[in-house]
């Protein structure tokens, strides 16, 4: 029995942390859920539905549902804008919390949550104008001091690959070169797919896969797993919204999306032109279009094509706090820079993409597994 306080700390409020917290609370275990930013939900709460009238099993709505579960659960105590700054191993753990730096979590002076289940929905930094009435001042958020818990679940997630590292794609230079995450925001804000430069519907769209993943030169020897399914689903959404759209996908190997993948893949092949090559570079053309240069698949010769919008499928990199967390909690890091699985009797557990890439569905399943392991460590629920 390792249960003294009857409490577990979950670090990270993305889908892994939310699921772990929710599953623990369902077994009557108190949870201290610590989230660095001002909002729960992580990356995936910002993802749009990929249904093309029929559901494509992306799992985005599951994140929404899990967030609603967590915010309505009294056994889960949420600490927004809070970081773990130290840990002392006693009978259980004494975890020191501190407020996240404003400049780190507030890139703008008014912040908006992605889901209406986010509470608060708006956060403002001092002195900001035009803030909605119900906005909460960032200074009122954040916890400090030590919290005693029996076990710790680390769910600190991933960091999207910085596309500027692949400088020949001109992400920082050309408006219409965007990442998959940017595309999510565009669709959320507009209700449909438009390109950034002029708000027009793009006719020719390119997806470039493996931006930052499977890249020996960068030393990134892993497949991010989620980008192929993601890009294919997004391409399906674009084609469904505009049957005239011409969509190309530049890839190395197409990865599976989960159940019923062969059926899904065959169908998407009707909508998308798959080109097995990774483009070299992108140049701007008149009228906000882009020229994309690559080795033509069949001729083995350099070729170029014109697109209205280029979407970079940026990979999943180790979370930016991984090194810090690894040091504070004494968790080994694997050769790719993700967290390893801690020893079973350490009382520290790792859930979600902090341990390596995974889809929403895989993360939910994995976080359930971690919740059970945590319960078993505590000696069962009360």
């Amino acid at each position, binding site marked *: 029995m390792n249960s003294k306080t009857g409490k577990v700390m979950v670090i990270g409020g993305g889908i892994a942390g939310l699921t772990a917290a929710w*599953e623990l609370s369902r*077994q009557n275990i108190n949870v201290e859920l610590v989230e660095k930013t001002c909002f729960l939900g992580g990356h995936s*709460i910002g*993802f*749009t*539905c990929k*249904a093309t*009238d*029929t*559901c494509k*099993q992306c*799992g*985005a*709505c*599951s*994140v*929404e*549902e899990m967030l*609603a*579960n967590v915010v*309505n659960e009294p056994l889960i105590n949420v600490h927004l804008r809070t970081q773990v700054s130290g840990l002392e191993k006693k009978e259980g753990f004494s975890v020191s919390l501190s407020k996240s730096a404003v400049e780190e979590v507030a890139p703008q002076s008014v912040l908006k949550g992605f*889901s*209406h289940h986010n509470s608060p*929905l708006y956060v403002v930094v001092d002195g900001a104008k035009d803030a909605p009435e119900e906005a909460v001042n960032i200074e009122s958020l954040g916890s400090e001091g030590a919290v005693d818990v029996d076990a710790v679940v680390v769910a600190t997630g991933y960091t999207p690959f910085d596309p500027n590292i692949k400088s020949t794609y001109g992400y920082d230079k050309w408006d219409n070169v965007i990442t998959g995450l940017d595309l999510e925001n565009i669709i959320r804000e507009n*209700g*449909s797919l438009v390109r950034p430069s002029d708000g027009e519907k793009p006719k020719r769209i390119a997806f470039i896969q493996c931006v930052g993943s*499977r890249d020996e030169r960068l030393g990134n*020897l*892993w*497949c991010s*797993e989620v980008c*192929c399914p993601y890009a294919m689903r997004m391409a399906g959404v674009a084609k469904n919204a505009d049957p005239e759209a011409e969509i190309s996908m530049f890839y*190395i*190997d*197409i*990865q*599976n999306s989960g*159940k*019923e993948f*062969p*059926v899904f*893949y065959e169908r998407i092949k009707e909508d998308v032109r798959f080109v*097995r090559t990774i483009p070299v570079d992108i140049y701007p053309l008149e009228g906000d279009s882009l020229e994309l240069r690559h080795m033509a*698949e*069949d*001729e*083995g010769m350099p070729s170029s094509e014109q697109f209205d919008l280029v979407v970079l499928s940026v990979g999943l990199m180790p979370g930016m706090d991984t090194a810090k967390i690894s040091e504070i909690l004494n968790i080994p890091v694997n*050769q790719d820079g993700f967290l390893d699985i801690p020893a079973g009797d350490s009382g520290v557990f790792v859930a979600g993409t902090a341990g*390596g890439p995974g889809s929403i*569905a895989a993360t*939910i*399943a*994995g976080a*359930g*597994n971690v*919740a*059970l*392991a945590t319960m*078993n460590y505590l000696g*069962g629920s009360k």
Partner: protein
Amino acid sequence: MIAEKSSKTIEVQINKDVLVVGAGKAGLGAAAQIAAQGYKAVVIGNKTTCACGAGCSKEMQEAGLVEIQDGASLVAIAGVAGDFRATLGKGEETCEATFGAVVVAPQYTSVALNSNYGLALNDKVITQSQMEALLADDAGKEKLINGSGSTVAFLSGFGQEGDPAATGRVLESALAVQKLENCRSYIYAGNVKVGGKGLERLFTQGRNEGVVCFKPKTMPTIEQDRDKLKIVITDPVVRADVELEPDYVVVEEGVVVGPNNLTIAQTLGIDTDVDGFLPSNNVHRFPVKSNREGIYVAQNDVDAANVALQVKSLIGDGVRTLTEDIAVVDDSKCVICLTCYRCCPHGAIFWKDGAAVISPAACQGCGICASECPMDAIQLGDFTDADLKSGVKEAVASVADATPSIVAFCCKNSALEAGEAAAQFGHEMPAGFRMVKVPCAGKVDVELIMNALVEGADGVMVAACHEGNCKAERGNIYAGWRVEEIRQRLENMGLNKDRVVFTTIASNMAREFACKVNEFAEKL
């Protein structure tokens, strides 16, 4: 879950034993996790692996927490979550037992896909498993080295779309062969499925060791002439045919559903996906739930843990609190036409003493049965017809006379969420737009829609989950049919059918929902 306004609750004692159908690694793993939570797991099926190795320790078995009935099968099942009454068979004998929950651990069959390549298996054309067996011991390795070394060609992903598990096996073997003295590995792959932990690193390691990987666009042509093998592909880079005469061709193995899979699914009344695998491909069931309360599916260790969590939540200490009036049949109206029994997606309806009975232990409250019942004999506690009608009346009355009123029947799982979010985010919506909450679009019947028109709604929208995303599997489909029926009726009456529309939306798509509503309002 957000509490509904209801209602009458009762406490029932439930059975704490769990039936596990399938005695392979996944089934025994699930049994171990369940037993670790203090529940007894009874495992049936053909035991294919060591129970202790799968986690079912001797202590668990001696303590009676895991009971393995090797060779037993599920003949029939009755009852509901908390009280499943199973008939188990072994040989000629059958016995009855009661369980609180059921776990299915489907067994898969591995098949060599040589015929998909037009190849016959022999000592040179072998399966992935046979290659692994060769590599497992020194004699096998010697056979491969065979003095001057062998050339081995691995086929992957053309016979069937591959997966990371299968790819991992190919990559491991190809690397192992390459490392043998004078041996060379070639992989002919469709898509190299490196979407699994460590696989890209393994793939890179293989290439660095000299494994050659070809990715032809179409299945390679393979000539098999007695002992002579020849593989021809067109290489896109050198733009020429590339020929290889390997000593061995290793064909991939595909995973297909086991022979009993469908029978088990039918016996338990649970849905499969299009390929026949359990459970159905519905995100609300991920990772281990089925369409029936108390029946779960486990395919691996992670699932086993999630099954244990579900079992623990369901069974707890053996007492379950149920809401008695989620859905209730008025037995004076019921004529046992079995419509409700047939349309219930959750296997919650039975009949007793001349009337249908809805089990509160299995009912999910979607209301499809209430809408389909030709006698109007079923009412939901939280969503009675009277409640919904007064909701519609209020909605229409709250809109100013000069403003067109739109009544939207919104599924609480999707459209209601999206609508509430749209309001909170301040997305512009028509002034006369009003949402009426329904448990599932499947609860919205023709009468309710007509009632909204009679009350004076200028437009009626039925907003459901996307197809394949309905928690009640088919509630959205029923709703779509009913809207179509009304549109036909309106047209036949010479009225504008576009006053009634059906739409689907996800819970997290507030802006899209606002766009759809505004578009509808404009057309009105």
